[in-house]
């Protein structure tokens, strides 16, 4: 046994600096894909929608007038759009991709009269978490994880959160075996028919106040399992969701950010947010253009 202790001590500290700073070593895998509407043309918009294997990119219309919806909540990070249109779709290496409302994951662009696509205005939903007092958790969180029908990719990453590289306990985050002791329910996987009752019971067993975190695109939007007869699809149709962590699977750092976001110790990455209050004037013009196009 003493040899193990020596072995452990000689290894030294390997824990990531995140969230205090950036960790390029751990953040090598993209956490998400970012859309730059300025780099998009109508032909590429139609081409990427054609190539997308899920409903992350859905186009309607034609080269002259059309619209493209980009939904990070359905993006499985297959890399097809970033290869087809690198000037419009870029991999995001910043792990801070989690958001507090579903609509912050999706963006819309429209084009008319063959012009360049412009971003459409979105009315962002009220932030559930901001309205509620997360301070009640004392900035620490006990998490009950529930696999609602995942591929085990998300669990593989969640297990690594306890490893020396990520060590979630240093951030006041803990996995707990019992829902009675939990503050948050972390759900992975598309909700299967056979796990739906267990999901509901687990949620009900967690005392109020409680948070729900949807981790991975299966739980957020259904990903490639959308439309199945054995799957329920988006978790937020069954339970109120407070934090969405995109990814397939979400990287360990993205999961850490999502959990910190849930507990009020991190903020959303502003540049990744879709058009909100700040950009509304320009976006309003875009919406007008669509009306003319129709």
């Amino acid at each position: 046994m003493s040899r193990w202790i020596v072995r452990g001590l000689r290894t030294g500290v390997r824990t990531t600096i995140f969230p205090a700073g950036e960790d390029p070593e751990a953040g090598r895998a993209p956490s998400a894909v970012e859309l730059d509407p300025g780099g998009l043309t109508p032909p590429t918009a139609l081409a990427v929608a054609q190539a997308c294997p899920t409903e992350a990119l859905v186009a309607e219309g034609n080269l002259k007038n059309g619209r493209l919806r980009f939904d990070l909540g359905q993006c499985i990070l297959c890399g097809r759009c970033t290869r087809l249109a690198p000037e419009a779709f870029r991999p995001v290496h910043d792990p801070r991709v989690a958001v507090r409302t579903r609509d912050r994951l999706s963006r819309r662009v429209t084009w008319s009269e063959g012009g360049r696509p412009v971003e459409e205005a979105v009315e962002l939903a009220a932030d559930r978490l901001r309205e509620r007092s997360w301070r009640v958790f004392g900035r620490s969180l006990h998490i009950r994880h529930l696999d609602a029908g995942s591929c085990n990719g998300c669990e593989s990453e969640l297990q690594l959160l306890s490893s020396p590289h990520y060590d979630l306990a240093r951030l006041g985050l803990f996995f707990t075996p019992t829902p009675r002791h939990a503050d948050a329910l972390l759900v992975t996987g598309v909700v299967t028919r056979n796990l739906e009752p267990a999901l509901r019971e687990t949620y009900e067993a967690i005392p109020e106040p409680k948070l729900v975190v949807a981790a991975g695109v299966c739980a957020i939007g259904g990903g490639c399992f959308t439309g199945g007869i054995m799957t329920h699809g988006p978790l937020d149709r069954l339970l109120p969701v407070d934090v969405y962590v995109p990814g397939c699977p979400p990287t360990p750092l993205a999961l850490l950010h999502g959990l910190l976001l849930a507990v009020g110790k991190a903020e959303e990455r502003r540049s990744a947010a879709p058009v909100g209050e700040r950009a509304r004037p320009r976006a309003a013009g875009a919406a007008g253009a669509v009306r003319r196009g129709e």
Partner: protein
Amino acid sequence: MTRLVELAPALGLSLEAGPPGELRAVCAGASFTDLAARIAVGAHLSDLFAGVNPEGAVLTAVFSAPGDPDWLLLSTLLTGDRFLSLTPRVHAASWFEREIAEMYGLVPEHHPAPVRLRLHDWPEDLPPMRCRLAPGERAPRGERPEVVPEVRGQGIFQLPLGPVRSGPQESAEFLFTSGGEDLVAVWPRLGYKLRLVERLAEGRPVEAALALAERLAGTSTLSNGLAFVQAVERAAGVEVPPEARLARTLLNELERLHHHFGAVGRVADATGLSVAAAQYAMLKEEVLRVCAALTGHRYSRGVLAPGGLATPLAAEGVAELARRLPGWGRRAERLGGLLEDTATFMDRLEGTAVLEPEYAAHHHLVGPIGRSTGVDRDVRRDHPYAAYGEMEFQVPGDDQGDAEARVRVLLAEIGQSLGIVRQALDRAPAISPAPPIAALGPGSALGWAEAPGGETLHFVELDAEGRVRRWRARPPACVNWHPYAHACASGNNLTDYPVIEASFALSHAELDR
């Protein structure tokens, strides 16, 4: 041993042309079971699955024999909804037939235990793979038949574990029967994670179905994707350039490495050896980071494409792998040695959850679980794919069949995988993206790969537009879950259970699909 190519004509079967390495024969429905049983005398029943043609239901059995590079596919068109069960003569058919029965509504007559495998409260009259429910339409919830074996004795009680488990792990339910200290029986209740992946793929283009194949199970992403994509390539007669085959080999071994590091780490964790668990978790994380540097995804998702790879392996990733590889080798060897010297670890494994070689032979087991109990099978060696034909490696084996043997096999396989990665690196897998394939015509073929848990077989049938008409995935967990309850009942303690579960390292996502 008679080779399958000679055996089939001797049984009166005429062989049809199939993709290379694939012998195909069709027989009448009435003689299917007898022929399959006679072939299985000297061969493994690797798979048995159903499909539906416009004319009716089709059964296909897949065989492979030791030392024989061919696969034999025996199929038959059923005239009704019943067929004679193969299970009384070939025990390995049991779960395959239960799956056919619940998914296709076909009745295996004289099956000794014709109960559901993965369906819970699904209505009887709606076989999920054949029913005409619209996407998203819900079937009503019916009764969930309970099929728990009855155990009687003084002080015997039953204890359910799951489906919601204690830590961040897969949902699964096990019903323990215990007398207090001893574990009398463990009954896995399967199917919680049933997503019906194979039905979801039907009618989708190959690229979209490949995304599903990559998501059968997270830690065997590349192997299942590879088996699927190889099936598509074989069906369409597409050649893969040697550099792409080399890169696929490299990625396949990196996946085995991160899976095995994770699996050994979990066994260490189950025995309370937290330093060892942390050390192996670090190794796993490092392999995942190198995969990310090579392919842009930690689990190498999206890197495969029919005909080769979707993206070339990144040069800096190759350089980093070359830099890290010797260190991994040294650490893996040192940690493995330390584990073997740790009495508290080895004592927990020795004699725990024994699978006897005779039992394993009847179940046609695969992967490290099979190899730890005398089943000498590895498709990398027996049916070489990608660039494995040019690689030098051993297939480690054992015949003890206990948790110790399973861990020893995992540790030995880590060493072999590191060697294969080294050989692939020496040949510099600098490759360009796959040339786009003009058209994937109609056709069908079998594809295979050695996933970390054992051989994975994918049968893919494409229609005239190159869309998936039928996809059958038989990942290793479909076979290796079968003997689990038997191994658990081999005289273990209740407290051994975490060690048993970790030493099997079985995937629920693969079985439930």
